[in-house]
C-alpha cells in the first residue's frame, strides 16, 4: 500500500473516531441538558405566598409574623377580585326576581371562574377549609400560577371544522362571557396585579429532597422515594458485594486448582498400611473427582454469564415467586425482598469485575507472600484482596448505580407508589416508594400529570445525580487507592 493511502486511511480512521465521540457527547448533552435544566426547577423556583403558607402550616417553617403581614397584603390585593365575584354571585342568588332571571345565564361561567380562581389563589373568602391539602392553597409555584392565570383570562378551544387537519387551538378571552356584569373588570385587574396577589420570590427549596409528599406529590418533597432507593441500593450492595467477591476469589484462586477434590482427598489417608490396589483405586477416584470439579466450575462460570444476560423483569418475577411467595422472606413486598432481587441482578457484574481485578494482581505478590510462609487464605486476605481493591470497588459501586436505577426488579418485590419513610427495621418487612418506580408512576398514572411536571423532572434529576455521583465516587476512590498502591 502506498504511503499516501496509508496516511489517508489513518486520518479517516481518526476522523471517524473523533466524530463518534463528538456524536456521543452531543447525544448525552441532548439527553441530560433538559433533565438538568428542568430538574433544577424542582429545587430552585419562584415560590408564591401560597407556598410559604403551606410551609408554615404543614411543616412549621418560616416566620409566622412575616407571613401574617404578607397574607394581609395579598388579601388586600385580592380584594377587588373577590368583591367582583361576590357581586355577581349576589345578583344571581339574592337580587330581585327579574334580575335573578336575567343573570341566571351567568351561573355556569361563574362557577367555572370561581373554580379557577380557587385553584389560583386558594379558597375564596367565607368558604370552609377544604379537606384536601392541595385545595387549601393556591398555586405555590409562580410558573404554574402564570399558566393558571392564562386559563382564567382565556378559554382554550379547539376548532375541528376542517376534518383534514388537526384541531386548531383557539384562545377566546373569557371576559366576553361576562360583558356587562360586575365581573368584567376582574380580568384586567387580574392581568395587571397578579404579582401583588401572589408575591413570587426566588427560593431554594431543599425540602424537595427531604420533605414528605402531600396529596401524592402535588405539594412537598420526595423524601420517601429517595430513602427507599437508598435502602434498596445499600441492601443490594450489602448482600451482593460479599457474595460476589467470595465467588470471584473462588473462581480465580480455587476454581482452577481442583481445590475441593484436593481437600476432600487429603482427608483420605494415602498411608502405607493400605494395600497397593486401594491406593490406585484412590488415584482413580481422585481423577474422577477432579474432572467432576472442573465440570462444575465451568458450569458455574456459564451460570454467572447467563445470569448477567437475564432480563431484569425476570429477576423481578423471580423475586416475587421465590423470595416472597415461596420462602416468605416477607409477607408482602418489602425492601428486603427488593434488595435481595437487586442483589441477584448485580451479582454477575460484581463477580466479573472482582474476578478481573483479582486476576490482574501480579503473580509475584502471591509468590512473595507464599515464600514468606503465608497460607492460601492469608495470601488472599492480606495481599491479593488489598491489591485488587480498586477494581473490586469500582465494579461494586458501578453496580450500585445500576441497582439504584433498576425499575423492573422492584415492581413486584419492593416498590409502592405512595408510602412513608421507613426505619431500617421496618425495611425488613415493608414496601417503600423508590425513585425509578415513582418516576414511572408520576409520568404515566398520576391524576394530574401536567401539574407535577416539576416533580417528574426533579425525580429524574435526583436519580441521575445519584447514579452519576456514585460513578464519580468510584472513579475518585479508584484513583486514590491506586495512587496509594503505586507509592
Amino acid at each position, binding site marked *: 500500500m502506498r504511503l499516501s493511502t496509508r496516511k489517508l486511511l489513518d486520518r479517516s480512521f481518526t476522523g471517524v473516531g473523533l466524530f463518534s465521540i463528538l456524536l456521543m457527547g452531543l447525544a448525552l448533552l441532548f439527553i441530560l441538558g433538559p433533565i438538568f435544566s428542568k430538574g433544577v426547577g424542582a429545587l430552585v423556583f419562584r415560590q408564591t405566598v401560597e407556598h410559604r403558607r403551606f410551609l408554615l402550616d404543614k411543616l412549621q417553617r418560616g416566620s409566622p409574623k412575616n407571613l401574617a403581614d404578607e397574607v394581609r397584603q395579598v388579601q388586600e390585593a385580592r380584594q377587588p377580585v373577590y368583591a367582583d365575584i361576590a357581586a355577581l354571585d349576589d345578583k344571581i342568588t339574592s337580587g330581585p326576581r327579574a334580575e335573578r332571571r336575567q343573570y341566571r345565564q351567568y351561573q355556569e361561567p361563574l362557577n367555572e371562574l370561581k373554580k379557577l380562581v380557587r385553584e389560583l389563589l386558594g379558597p375564596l373568602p367565607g368558604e370552609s377549609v377544604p379537606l384536601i391539602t392541595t385545595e387549601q392553597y393556591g398555586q405555590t409555584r409562580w410558573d404554574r400560577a402564570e399558566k393558571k392565570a392564562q386559563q382564567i383570562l382565556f378559554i382554550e378551544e379547539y376548532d375541528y371544522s376542517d376534518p383534514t387537519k388537526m384541531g386548531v387551538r383557539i384562545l377566546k378571552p373569557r371576559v366576553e362571557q361576562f360583558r356587562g356584569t360586575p365581573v368584567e373588570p376582574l380580568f384586567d385587574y387580574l392581568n395587571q396585579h397578579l404579582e401583588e396577589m401572589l408575591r413570587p420570590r426566588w427560593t431554594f427549596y431543599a425540602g424537595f429532597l427531604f420533605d414528605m409528599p402531600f396529596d401524592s406529590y402535588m405539594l412537598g418533597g420526595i423524601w420517601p422515594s429517595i430513602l427507599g432507593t437508598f435502602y434498596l441500593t445499600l441492601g443490594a450492595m450489602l448482600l451482593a458485594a460479599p457474595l460476589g467477591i467470595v465467588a470471584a476469589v473462588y473462581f480465580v484462586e480455587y476454581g482452577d486448582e481442583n481445590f475441593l477434590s484436593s481437600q476432600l482427598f487429603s482427608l483420605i489417608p494415602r498411608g502405607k498400611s493400605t494395600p497397593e490396589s486401594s491406593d490406585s483405586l484412590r488415584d482413580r477416584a481422585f481423577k474422577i473427582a477432579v474432572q467432576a470439579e472442573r465440570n462444575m466450575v465451568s458450569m458455574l462460570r456459564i451460570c454467572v454469564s447467563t445470569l448477567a444476560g437475564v432480563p431484569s423483569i425476570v429477576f423481578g418475577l423471580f423475586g416475587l415467586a421465590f423470595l416472597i411467595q415461596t420462602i416468605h422472606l416477607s409477607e408482602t413486598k418489602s425492601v428486603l425482598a427488593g434488595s435481595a432481587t437487586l442483589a441477584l441482578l448485580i451479582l454477575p457484574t460484581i463477580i466479573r469485575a472482582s474476578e478481573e481485578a483479582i486476576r490482574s494482581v501480579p503473580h509475584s505478590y502471591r509468590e512473595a507472600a507464599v515464600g*514468606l510462609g503465608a497460607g492460601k487464605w492469608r495470601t488472599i486476605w492480606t495481599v491479593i484482596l488489598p*491489591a485488587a481493591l480498586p477494581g473490586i470497588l469500582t465494579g461494586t459501586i458501578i453496580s450500585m448505580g445500576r441497582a439504584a436505577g433498576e425499575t423492573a426488579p422492584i415492581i413486584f418485590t419492593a416498590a409502592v407508589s405512595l408510602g412513608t419513610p421507613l426505619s431500617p427495621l421496618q425495611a425488613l418487612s415493608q414496601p417503600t416508594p423508590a425513585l425509578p418506580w415513582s418516576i414511572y408512576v408520576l409520568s404515566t398514572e398520576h391524576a394530574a400529570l401536567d401539574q407535577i411536571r416539576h416533580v417528574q423532572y426533579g425525580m429524574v434529576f435526583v436519580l441521575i445525580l445519584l447514579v452519576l455521583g456514585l460513578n464519580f465516587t468510584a472513579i475518585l476512590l479508584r484513583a486514590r487507592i491506586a495512587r496509594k*498502591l*503505586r507509592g
Partner: protein
Amino acid sequence: MQATLEQPIAMQAPVSYRVDASSATSVRSESTGKAVIAAENFFIYYGTHAAVREVTIQIPPGKVTAIIGPSGCGKSTFLRAINRMNDLIPSCHTAGLLSLDGVDIYAPRLDVVSLRQRVGMVFQKPNPFPKSIFDNIAYGPRLFGVRNRRVLQEIVEKSLRRAALWDEVKDRLDANALGFSGGQQQRLCIARALAVNPEVLLMDEPASALDPRSTARIEDLIGELRGAYTIVIVTHNMQQAARVSDHTAFFYEGELVEFGATRKLFTKPEKKATEDYITGRFG
C-alpha cells in the same frame, strides 16, 4: 582461556567482603543454626516431563552455593523445590528425597508454613507488596503471630540494617515500597526474607533485573550474610557466581553435572560439559 577465568576469581579476594566482625557474630548468634540441604536421587516433574533428574547433592551449611547452568536446565526449579514454591504449580510433583537437616521436605505431614519460615526466598524481580516499607518487613513476623508494635519495630530495624538498607529508608518507613528504586526494592525483599529469621536463604537470580551498581550492592550484601545463613543462589552470571559463592553446582538439562568448590570448578572442572559452559562454548 585460563587467564580469563583468573579475573573473576581474583575479585573474590576477601577485601570486597570485609565483614565487621562484631556484627557478623551477632547475626550468627541469633540464627538458630545452619541447615544442611541434601537431595538424594531427586526428581521434579511438570506433568510427565522431568525438569530435574536424579539430583544428588549436599549443600554445605553456612556457605554460599551458586547454581549455574543454561536456561531451562532446571536450576530455578530445583531452587524453588527447596521451600516448596513449586506447590503453586498444580501439575508439579516430585520423587526421591530432598531434606532439610534430615527432615524430608516433601513428607505429607510436613508443615509447609514453618518450612518456609526456615527457608526464605528472594525472587528474580523485586516483588515488594504495595504497602509501606514497615508493613513489608513486618509481614512475615505478623504471620507468625508477632503483634507487639515495639517488637515489630525492632525486627524491622534489625532486618533493614542486615540488608544494608536502614540508612537509606529509616526516615521513610511509612512510604510505599513501590516508590523506591529497583535495587532498594530488592534489598527490601532480602530484608523481608530475613525478618522471619530463616536458616536458609534462596535467591533466584536476585540481581538479574538490576543495574551494575545495584548488583554490586546485592553481591556485597550476600558477602555480609555469608556464614550466618546457608545461601543458595541461582545465577546466569558466571562472574557473579565466581565472586560470591563458596561452592558451585552446574546443572545441565535437568541433571547435576558437577558440584564442588567454586575455585576448583572454575579453574579445573572435572567434566567436559562444565568446561565448555564456563568457557562460553555454549549456553
